């Protein structure tokens, strides 16, 4: 039985834990999630601008949480997590990319995009 199996606190992943960083990342995550929500709820900006803000906040969250929470790096302990994250990227690009392509062609055939946000629909 290895040392970390006898004492879970000795496990290398647990050793990476930092309470202060966790708390700080949690607060930043709340801000980066709450701010776009507040902007969307109060319709502060055009749909395009709101989308850019939401995407930018999501990207920032991914990086911050990836580094400070998941501790993604190339150390022996963490490389599987990093590998899993890297393997996820093609799937992400494929699903989001193909979905965007599908909707781009779909909108031109089934609906007028600008009408979706017109006051007439906001009943």
């Amino acid at each position, binding site marked *: 039985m290895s040392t970390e199996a006898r004492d879970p606190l000795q496990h290398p992943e647990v050793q990476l834990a930092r309470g202060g960083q966790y708390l700080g990342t949690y607060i930043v995550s709340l801000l980066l999630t709450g701010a776009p929500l507040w902007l969307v709820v109060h319709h502060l900006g055009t749909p395009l601008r709101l989308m850019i803000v939401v995407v930018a906040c999501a990207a920032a969250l991914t990086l911050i949480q990836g580094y400070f929470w998941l501790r993604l790096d190339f150390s022996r302990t963490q490389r599987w997590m990093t590998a899993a994250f890297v393997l996820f990227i093609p799937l992400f690009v*494929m699903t989001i990319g193909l979905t965007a392509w599908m909707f781009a062609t*779909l909108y031109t055939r089934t609906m007028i995009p600008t009408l979706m946000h017109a006051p007439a629909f906001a009943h």
Partner: protein
Amino acid sequence: MLVDYPGPWTPLLGRLDAHQIPLQNPILFWTFVLVSLGAATVLGAVTYYRSWGYLWREWLTSLDHKRIGVMYCLLGVVMLFRGFIDGVMMRTQQVMAVGPKSPGYLGAVHGYLPPYHFGQIYSAHGTIMILFAITPILVGIMNIIVPLQIGARDMAYPYLNAVSFWLTAAATGLVMISLFIGDFSHAGWVGLSPLTELAYSPGVGVDYWSWAVQIGSVGTTLASINIIATIIKMRAPGMSWTKMPIFCWTALSTSVVGLSSFPVFTAAVALLSLDRYAGTHFFTPGLGGNLMLYTDLFWIWGHPEVYYVVLPAFGILSEIIPTFSEKPLFGYITMAAASIAIGGVSWSVWLHHFFTMGAGPGVNAFFSIASMLVGIPTGVKVFNWAFTLYRGRVRFDVPMLWALAALVLLLTGGLTGMMLAMPAINYTVHNSVFVVAHFHNMLNVVGFACFGAINYWFPKVFGFKLDERTGKLAFWFFSAGTVVLFGSMYALGFMGMPRRIDYIPFTSWRPLLIGEEVGIFLFLIASYYMVKQLFVSIRDRAKNRVTTSDAWGTSRSLEWLAHSPVPFYNFAVQPHVNARDEWAWRREHGLGHVRPDHYEDIHLPNNTPLPLMLGACAFALGFGLVWRMYWLALVSLIGIVIIVIARSFQDDPGHTLPGAQIRQMEAVYPDIPREAGATGGMLGGVVARHALAAPRSRARDD
């Protein structure tokens, strides 16, 4: 923030009141009576035989992967029966409600099921069969077999394994309780948008569906993580990637698919729940939302889910066919590669489920070609199975019958799948029962493989074989039912019959609808023989007991090295893997069972009731949210958080099984020789040492 909905609400019971218990519906009333009697009988029997302690210690709190796997399978089989009864009711309604002169009963204008009740039944049938029957059975089989095939003592995370199971059980409980308290979704198993929105479905049916699938999805995602970690980290010494059994390759591929797709489903349904509870507009047309986004997100999970269930089935066929052909599997490397390829391609085909939505021709062409690409690795697998059979000494035991029939079904299901991958054909038959016949055809491949797997590995888990005679009767009636039912359904699809209709306007369809009813009657007979097979097998278990670890005499992979039934520690000493078909290699070299000169202590996890408690809290959370009993939801959520934190602080190092005790337990097995083999001082290296001296078999090992 919370949205308004019609009907009364009280702080204590939320939307629940006495009228929500459908006692006035005779079908549900008598179902309730039957289920109550059944439950009372089971609980009474457990009490009479004073088995509560045994049940608690050995099953409900167990972290043993085999016990959890058996519970998964049991849950899946019970739900399979429930889903099957739903199917019987649908077929019967359709055959009764043909033409304007068809009579109505029990409040229905035609047939015996009003449209709303019919809608609930087809929604429950689809949801149950895919998510709560086939998926748990397959996860259960993987739970039992994967650790044994890779020579591990348990899953990588035994505690998480139990949590996954109890979350699945909690979700299943929600689906089942919707029969008797409230109602179930009428919006199809896919959650047809915007029918699932509160404006169109103000009852609790959609909420039952949405919370059940969300909780169940979390359980399945966790199970996928566990299987991946187990295969990567827990393989026995010597088991390189190219020596890993094919079933494990398919389990790995399917778990990657599950891990990457189930969260999309969970997120999509969570957004739908926000629409229904918090008043957001993710999927409400005209208010900035997009109902087609739901369909897109659903099928981003939905099509990989198809491969999630079919890949383990392919793995099962790859284990059964070589055993009963008495040959190694043909084309191991291509088989493994095809398993991974199918998982990879599964991510780029989902749009073929809604070709008719109106995307551009370029998009449809891309997804059409991608969908057809799946046929290449699948074709590779079919040819490999055919070449395995070629010039083999083929035996037609019950598992092999199921496996061979699955190959036939794969051919017809695959070819009709190719048809549906073409947008032009897809436009013609979209939403017809041709599509329903196709995916039932494919899910029958999975079902046949599961029945084959249960017959194949039953002696490994329980120590005695299932009865052959009744097993063959069950197989033939089930096969006949499949042909008659889905043959008729394919034909009706070509004739233009839409899916999900409770009334059939054209009397010319009646003969084929009768054909479908005959088919499902044959399924009923098959079900009778399946139950009888189990009964006869348990009754005659002494006669059917297997005395060696290899129940079939020609098995090949490592699980057949373990005793039958497998002891809780799996292997007395961790095996060293010398060849791809390790058990076949050992058998051929006379190394089947060699007694080690000494046994080392084995470390095992302790039982714990916490996963069961987490499942109970998850059920209460779901039930509270369905009925908007917010206090119950909050208390349950706090309970979950407390249990998770308590577990984190629990200092439970597990327990150790002393080597001397293992020696005593191993002494009862007749296939273990009394004399120890020459080990050269290597524990568990008995075979490794013999392996060095034995001639290598390139055919098995390269």
